[in-house]
């Protein structure tokens, strides 16, 4: 469903923008990305620019053997973020914790995490 929407969008944007825009205007409807506004538009623009994960929602694979010196980096647009560590494959509970900018944190399983600045959508 959502994939159909983004597939349509990508199909439209893969052609020359001017040509597609002209063809759309000829038939009376704007390009989806031109039609959108607000947060929806910013999300579509981020995806069109190549960022498939604009809200940093995907699961992040931990850097192997993360230590205090090379922690797994967790992106956030703000000063703090909740994150959960799945300590081992098939774990039945997630170890949730707050991460604060500038304070790397160690999960009980030994992995270190740090908050990294990323831009909001």
């Amino acid at each position: 469903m959502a994939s159909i929407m983004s597939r349509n969008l990508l199909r439209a944007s893969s052609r020359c923008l001017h040509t597609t825009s002209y063809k759309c205007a000829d038939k009376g409807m704007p390009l989806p990305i031109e039609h959108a506004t607000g947060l929806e538009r910013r999300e579509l623009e981020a995806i069109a620019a190549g960022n498939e994960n604009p809200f940093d929602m995907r699961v992040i694979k931990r850097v192997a053997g993360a230590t205090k010196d090379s922690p797994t980096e967790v992106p956030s647009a703000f000063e703090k973020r909740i994150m959960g560590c799945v300590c081992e494959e098939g774990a039945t509970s997630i170890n949730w914790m707050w991460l604060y900018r500038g304070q790397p944190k160690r999960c009980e399983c030994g992995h270190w995490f740090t908050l990294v600045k990323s831009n909001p959508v």
Partner: protein
Amino acid sequence: MSLHSNHPYHLVEKSPWPLIASVSALMMVAGLVKWFHDFKVSLFLFGVVSILLVSAQWWRDTVREAAFQGLHTLKVAQGMRWGMVLFIVSELLFFFSFFWAYFHSSLSPTSEIGAQWPPASINGFNPFQIPLLNTAILLASGVTVTWAHHAILENEHSQSVQGLLATVLLGGYFTFLQAFEYSESAFSIGDSVYGATFFVATGFHGLHVIIGSTFLCVNLWRLVQGHFSSAHHNGVEAAIWYWHFVDVVWLFLYVSIYWWGY
């Protein structure tokens, strides 16, 4: 810009509509009871008008949040689509119960109605007259609505308007014909279990046709206003799903009640 969150979800602003909607629904059903017992229809009518006003304003606010504020991200749109699917499933179960009631009474008709179906002295509608025309109308409307959808996907604005308009007109024609049938009927809802099952099942179906036609009409207006793009038109898709559902229910009604039950 000042942001407090960076997620795709829509946390809606405070709104009076949910509370007023539930109070209106309560007034409507309480009004039904008052109508049945005391023959006074005012509370029911007040409830119906109230529900209509709240629905219009609640959905108007949703349109504003989506089309004008751009708050309907991909995740939000997915949620809306799932919501519509689940709602249609609940409606399916609703109609299932009426079909159950119909088959319960018609598969082994009791001696009180003459151990036959239709019951003794009941003349049903000839399935090969207006009911068959109605079937053709709804099937045709399924074609026109699919045409409209494909037109939207291809950015063909004019064709999509034509397709939706044709669908709305066909829906109106169905409603008109069914109302005519009702007025010409040889039996009423009180005429044994036949009348009860017939009018409750076809009556609720007719109500759903009216609701579906209204939904399509609103989408036609929104299409003309330019609220939709080829990649984002969930209102249209929801209306189309609902319309196909209404069509399928009619096919079951036609085959079971009109044709098999004749």
